């Protein structure tokens, strides 16, 4: 809390030793809006140079967390550091890029002018602006529209512009809050490539996304939040160590399916039931049990647990 009071201070550049510090570190970061708890003691560490996925259902506190880290909101309690400096430190913001979930840019400016504005505010040396802007526009595929007014852009193009703004100045840490929410499949693919490019040059990426397949493809590490607190975190391998088993079956009523819950959490989609975490050795036992309950098995497909399986399982465990 005390750190946020420094919001209005421009401090000296971070000491050289800060390079060894995590990109993000939070300790019991909490936020209340009146009686509503938006974030209840967020503690996590995001190493430098990694792509970090931040997952959670709507209202879990993901965007609130990003805004707290960027100093746009003030925490009710707890502490946090970005690139080794307390949150709210203005100088640290020179080294950060941010694409908000609610992205909107000056419609009366051209794409190039919006990026020049961000270069000026960053602030980047004026001699580098042209190269920075040209490179950012090229990266997000807006070179052809560089001199067009932003008011003529589609939502997807505005999101691309926001991404370009976040890339200016080779930031050490980039926050992307639902970066593909307005993009078509081609755009999503492009964004994945951009994130991979950032990771390859050592930029830490904090990715808020509902698209679990995207997160699974991109992230080195994830944290799952629900009701304002982290319910699981770790590397992708640590989180997805189990096996999921999809069974196509007919003839099971609700009571029979309830009996099968002894095999772990299941995702019931009618004739298709997915056991989100089940050891492969127990598959014969599961099939026997289904047959004994009168079910007719058409397909049994064990596979590695996906992030979606794990995500649903975690939320289900939370509900219980």
């Amino acid at each position, binding site marked *: 809390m005390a750190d946020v009071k420094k919001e*209005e201070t421009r401090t000296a550049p971070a000491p050289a030793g800060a390079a060894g510090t995590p990109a993000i570190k939070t300790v019991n970061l909490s936020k209340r809006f009146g009686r509503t708890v938006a974030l209840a003691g967020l503690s996590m560490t995001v190493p430098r140079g990694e792509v970090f996925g931040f997952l959670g259902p709507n209202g879990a506190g993901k965007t609130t967390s990003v805004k707290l880290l960027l100093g746009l*909101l003030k925490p009710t309690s707890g502490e946090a550091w970005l690139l080794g400096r307390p949150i709210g430190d203005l100088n640290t*913001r020179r080294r950060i890029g941010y694409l908000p979930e609610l992205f909107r840019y000056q419609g009366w400016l051209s794409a190039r002018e919006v990026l020049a*504005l961000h270069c000026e505010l960053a602030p980047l040396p004026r001699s580098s602006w042209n190269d920075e802007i040209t490179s950012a526009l090229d990266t997000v595929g807006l070179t052809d529209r560089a001199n067009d007014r932003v008011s003529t852009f589609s939502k997807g193009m505005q999101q691309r512009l926001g991404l370009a703004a976040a890339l200016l100045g080779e930031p050490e840490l980039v926050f992307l809050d639902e970066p593909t929410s307005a993009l078509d499949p081609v755009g999503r693919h492009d964004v994945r490539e951009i994130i991979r490019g950032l990771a390859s040059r050592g930029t830490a990426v904090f990715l808020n996304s509902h698209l679990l397949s995207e997160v699974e493809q991109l992230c080195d590490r994830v944290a799952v939040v629900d009701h304002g607190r982290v319910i699981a975190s770790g590397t992708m391998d640590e989180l997805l160590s189990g096996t999921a088993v999809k069974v196509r079956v007919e003839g099971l009523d609700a009571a029979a399916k309830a009996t099968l819950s002894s095999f772990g959490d299941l995702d019931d989609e009618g004739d298709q039931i997915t056991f989100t975490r089940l050891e492969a050795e127990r598959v014969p036992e599961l099939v026997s049990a289904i047959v004994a309950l009168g079910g007719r098995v058409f397909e049994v497909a064990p596979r590695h647990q996906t992030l979606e399986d794990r995500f649903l399982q975690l939320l289900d465990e939370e509900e219980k």
Partner: protein
Amino acid sequence: MPPVLVIARLTVQETSRRRLILALIILTLIVVGFSAWGFNKITTVTRSDGTPLPAQQVALITSQLLIVVTFMYSGVLALSAAVVAGPLISSEVESGMLLSMLARPLRRSEVVIGKWLGLAVLIAFYAAGSAFLELVAVDWATGYLPPHPVQLVLYVGAEGLVLLSLGLLLSTRLSGITGGVIALVAWLMGWIAGVVGDIGTGLQNQAIENVGVISHLVLPTDGLWRGAIYALEPDAFLATLRAAGTVARANPFAQVDPPPTSFLAWVALWFAIVLALSIWSFRTREI
């Protein structure tokens, strides 16, 4: 360029690209043209014996008409300032436009001061430009110039700045429409309260007179407007007003004395207080 000036430039650029400046210039030129024609008609008025009005009488009529025209200009400036300042911050918070900017090394105080500065420059230019054009037109049409044109610009410009500052303060917390409407209503109430104060002066009723005094302290627009009136009145007219006593003081379009120095000092303090409140309000707002 310092961030505060970047924001100021952006504010000017926005009003320019949205064609607000162009619209104001065109409307002003139309008003100046019509008023020049109207003022010129005063010189063609004849007495019952067919002789033209003496120069002193033309000057007197022109000065009174110019006060009414200036009231319109100050109204346009006040309305424009309130309407533009009302959504200045709130609309950008609501749309999310400020999110990516505030994630840069940009203080919120720099956003507030920068936006104020940008609009203040426009108000100053409008006040000076419209006054220059109007006075040149009146001079051409009648040969009359008011005694204190520079003070006139300063008072009318300051009135616009008061509305800008109030609108900006409201904009840090309220939606654009709400803030703009409140600022406009406050401006009108301030003027009405000034008229009520005048009536109190005419009736020599201290309680009613205090309504005007208090309103001038809370929102100094009317007090500044009185300064503009004083700057427009020729000495001969002032002498007539002074001779008429308290009755002359009960007129919202006449002013016997210039605003006291203590009031002008209060206006300076008022700006400092309102801007400080705006910065505090925006700094503590969660977006």
